[in-house]
């Protein structure tokens, strides 16, 4: 790769001042990590400029997985976009469903029956558990842990995905929620199976923590690395566990009171340092809170219909207007903004993807750290490229 000493303005719009080696005699090395580098998540590219092994500039490159989701949705019926939302963040299709359904319900003024609300909370929290577990697994993988934490996470995820499959018919692409309710009713067998799986989860979380939390190598790699200051996090619009790891108490479940989250007792864990270790711990603790929410939901779920009686599948045309529906997704604030002109398809359809917006602070977190840490910091952001590129 080329050596950058005084770089001219680059044609690709990257117009930061040229970076020179601080001491003048060192040479800068540009390394392109990804999109086919073994450590990148999906097809993400980091153009890293290195002074020795220290990152002096990092330019993220994405769009390799762009599928024109928003424009396609503007040309399709409202319902036809629901299966596509599964494919945004393919780890958490159910929360994506919920956010989209929430936006459309606001637009059309539909009510969601009690039972369907409980089912949604149940599924969203199960999704959160499996997402956090596997994201920690991936983080450990990034650290070179030869797959053990990841396999443990996937073992439990498998059980949760079995629940999803038996309810929605698919493991990852659930396509389950509908405007005004849910597609299939849960059976009592399914609830029993869920409470069984959930009862085993705290033990899994304990095992997971025994393996990782007090591991000296993990601490050495994670503590004090990739610090995100709270004010920068707020200014950059970062949300989700990343924001809370920086110490900002902002959880949309508590702020927006969407769904029926007010009925559940749960706490929001907050970190004080904003480094990778805090992000890891906030995820672990959130997992435990989610387990408690699922247990409450299974206990309290009422009988009743699961679909709004007025909802119709064919010929759905909401009245003109606009709506923004957002939820606390496992990765952060996931929002859908819709404008209706009264037609069968939305006039404007926009996704606020938490992965992408959390990724914007990547360079700020990486500067001054080692390349190896850059990989780790990227892992701690917890992105899914399907959502970043859309």
């Amino acid at each position, binding site marked *: *790769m080329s050596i950058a000493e005084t770089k001219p303005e680059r044609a690709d719009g990257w117009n930061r001042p040229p970076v020179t080696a601080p001491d003048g005699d060192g040479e800068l090395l540009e*390394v392109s990590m990804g999109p086919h*580098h*073994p*450590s990148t998540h999906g097809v993400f590219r980091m153009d890293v400029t290195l002074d020795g*092994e220290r990152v002096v500039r990092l330019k993220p490159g994405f769009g390799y997985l762009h599928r024109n989701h928003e424009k396609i949705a503007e040309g399709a019926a409202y319902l036809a976009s629901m299966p596509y939302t599964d494919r945004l963040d393919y780890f958490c299709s159910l929360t994506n469903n919920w956010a989209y359904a929430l936006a459309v319900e606001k637009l059309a003024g539909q009510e969601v029956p009690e039972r369907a609300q409980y089912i949604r909370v149940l599924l969203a929290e199960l999704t959160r558990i499996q997402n956090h577990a596997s994201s920690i697994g991936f983080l*450990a*993988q*990034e*650290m*070179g*842990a*030869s*797959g*053990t934490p990841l*396999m*443990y996470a996937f*073992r439990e995820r498998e059980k949760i995905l079995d629940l999803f499959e038996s309810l929605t018919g698919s493991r990852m692409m659930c396509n389950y929620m509908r405007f005004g309710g849910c597609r299939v009713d849960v059976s009592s067998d399914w609830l029993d199976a869920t409470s069984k799986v959930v009862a085993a989860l705290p033990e899994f979380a304990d095992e997971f923590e025994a*393996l990782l*939390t*007090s*591991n*000296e*190598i*993990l*601490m*050495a*790699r994670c*503590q*004090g690395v990739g610090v995100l200051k709270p004010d920068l996090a707020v200014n950059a619009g970062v949300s989700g566990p990343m924001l809370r790891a920086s110490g900002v*108490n902002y*959880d949309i479940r*508590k702020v927006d009171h969407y769904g029926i989250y007010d009925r559940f007792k749960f*706490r*929001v*864990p*907050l*970190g*004080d*340092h904003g480094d990778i*270790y*805090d992000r890891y*711990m*906030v995820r672990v*603790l959130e997992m435990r809170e989610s387990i408690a929410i699922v247990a409450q939901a299974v206990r309290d779920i009422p009988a009743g219909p699961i679909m709004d009686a007025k909802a119709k599948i064919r010929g759905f045309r909401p009245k003109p207007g606009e709506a923004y529906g957002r939820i606390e997704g496992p990765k952060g604030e996931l929002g859908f903004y819709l404008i209706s002109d009264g037609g069968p398809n939305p006039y404007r359809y926009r996704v606020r993807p938490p992965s992408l917006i959390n990724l914007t602070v990547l360079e700020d977190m990486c500067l001054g750290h*080692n*390349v*190896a*840490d850059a*990989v780790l910091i990227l892992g701690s952001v917890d992105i899914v490229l399907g959502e970043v590129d859309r």
Partner: protein
Amino acid sequence: MTTTPASVTADQIFILLRDWLAGFLPAGLRTAADVVLGVIAIVAVFPALFALTTVFERKGLGRMQNRLGPNRVGPYGLFQPIADGIKALIKEDVVPLRADTVVHFLAPLTLVVAVFMEFAVLPMGRNMALVDMDAGLLFFFAMSASTELSVFMAGWSSRNKYSLLGAMRAIAQMISYEVVLVLSSISVVMIAGSLKLTKIVAEQNQYSGQFPHWYVFTPWGVAAALMYAIAATAETNRSPFDLPEGESELVAGYHTEYSGFKFALFFLGEYLAMFAISGLGVTLFLGGWSAPLQSLNVIPSWVWFFAKVMLCIFVFIWVRGTVPRLRQDQLMNFAWKFVLPFTLLDLVVTALWRFMGQGWLRWIVCTLILAAAYVLMGRFGLREERMGRRSYRYAE
């Protein structure tokens, strides 16, 4: 020693076999034949062990991760290495266009040759050292030092950034930890009073009642063995010190550009190095081929040696299944700020042990010094920033 003739035969079976085979040759050729047969045995046994280990490693790791591991080729997947070997053989040998072909070709060969040489001095059983030389330990380290050059050759000749960086990391790491490796072995040399590996084993092959006098059962021995284990892990590029091939940064390190059989040779070289270094560790600290209890001496000595080596290999695999990888600067800090000073201290303690004479006092003094040093150095010596468990607050 009250061993029956049958057990003596079992113990010496390989020696007897060798002599019997050499007996067919004229007397002048017998010494040469002895050497050739010994070399053939080593060249046959350790690659076979390597093949078995690869499948055991994958299965063991799999079980630790709640997977089954390879189970498709042959019963319990035992023929997996054969399939892998065939695959490696028939794969295209890709050499980068701008690579230095001669050096690129020589690198895996020199690596494997140097590693094979290490086995020459290891006493694998009673009377079973191929060459019982006076400076055996030094020979071992000389050979293991020359593997670094092969690593460099591989990394440089590939003309790949990742290869070169991987090679430089590997060499820096190997040199740093080699110092520790040598110093921790010197403790043993100080006590045994010899560089001759057979002598070191003979020193440990004594029993008080049932219990053997292995060096690992002394305070300085535990410390030295621990440091030796850390250094050996780093020296063989195993997790958590597998930075040279840390795939999250360097793709595959110095053998990124190797494919087919040359890659298999690197793989073989790495595992052979693991066997060799475990073998040396067993010889130095775990009593070599001597049995763990006197009454167990009926079992042939070579069985004990290989059992101990495989135990060490299992620990390697176990550690690999558990821990993440360190960062380069942390690795170096660990070597120079913790492992090396502690090993030096252990040398001093060993000298103390040597000159305090028999008695219980030296046990207490040496244990206290080492334990205190370990705790203190672990707490203050290593940490640049505050590191430790944290507590978290909750918002309702």
